[in-house]
């Protein structure tokens, strides 16, 4: 992590966040469900996802404010979304915020296609508990993999959760980097012991960042 730092995502990062959403949804495959279920090609989906980020709605996976990124001075190279469910200004669930964003942004033909794919769309819904940390959409640019960026970002989200007394994180298995998920899942299952390890690792990481 030398010469790199973690920061909140900014408007200029939206192209990278769009890439993050699509690559994480593909999970190493060829098709992103968010495009396929709505009958969109990838370029159409790319533009619509960017529009959703530009709305700057807080509290879901399409919120600019949910993302932390790793920057080495030339823009984002890794991104992870994290938010505390229902902790936004109006206490809205991510499910409803996401639905509102999609409904407001996507064209009518996409909504018709979505309705036709209703059961598949419903099957992708993630049950979320209010007040828990949600970690989604993990992506590291291909050239920057193997440097621990995804783990550092997840730990940073978790550190914020520890500080705000969030009971436990919840992971959705969407991402191009798998290792950090095991770590987070273990924290979920085993509680305090791994939480202690997490905090120690985070301190190590922060020290490196400050010196870098």
């Amino acid at each position, binding site marked *: 992590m030398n010469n790199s730092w973690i920061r909140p995502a900014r408007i200029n990062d939206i192209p990278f966040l769009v890439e993050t959403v699509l690559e994480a949804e593909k999970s190493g495959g060829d098709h992103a469900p968010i495009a396929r279920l709505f009958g969109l090609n990838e370029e159409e989906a790319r533009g619509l996802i960017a529009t959703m980020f530009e*709305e700057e*709605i807080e509290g879901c996976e399409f919120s600019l404010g949910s993302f932390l990124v790793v920057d080495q001075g030339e823009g984002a190279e890794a991104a992870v979304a994290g938010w505390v469910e229902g902790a936004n200004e*109006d*206490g*809205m*669930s991510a*499910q*409803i*915020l*996401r*639905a*509102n*964003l*999609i*409904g*407001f942004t996507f064209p009518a033909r996409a*909504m018709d296609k*979505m*309705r036709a794919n*209703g059961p598949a*769309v*419903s099957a992708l*819904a993630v049950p979320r508990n209010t007040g828990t940390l949600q970690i989604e959409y993990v992506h590291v640019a291909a050239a920057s993999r193997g440097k621990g960026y995804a783990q550092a970002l997840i730990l940073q989200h978790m550190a914020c959760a520890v500080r705000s007394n969030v009971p436990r994180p919840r992971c959705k298995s969407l991402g191009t980097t798998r290792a950090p998920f095991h770590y987070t899942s273990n924290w979920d299952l085993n509680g305090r012991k791994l939480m202690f390890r997490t905090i120690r690792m985070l301190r190590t990481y922060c020290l490196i960042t400050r010196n870098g």
Partner: protein
Amino acid sequence: MVDGAETPLVHMERDLITSKIQMTLIAVLGHGRFELHDDLTASDVEGWDSLTHMSIITGLEKEFDVKFKLREINKLRNMGTLIELISAKLA
């Protein structure tokens, strides 16, 4: 007596809005197993998920011939706030 004359009218409009919302919900959800009151939220109603939510919002826009703004619908905490929003748009 002016107040007395206006109050029933306001109530009647609210009742009409409530009734139309109820009809829209039944049409989208395919059931009427809910009691419509101001504190009702999506999580209280069977089948009101992200998928049906989009159809409900679209259905309400058609029913009342209004267009919601994204920031308006993101502030709808419960049925009471939805009725107030529609009422304000119809005023």
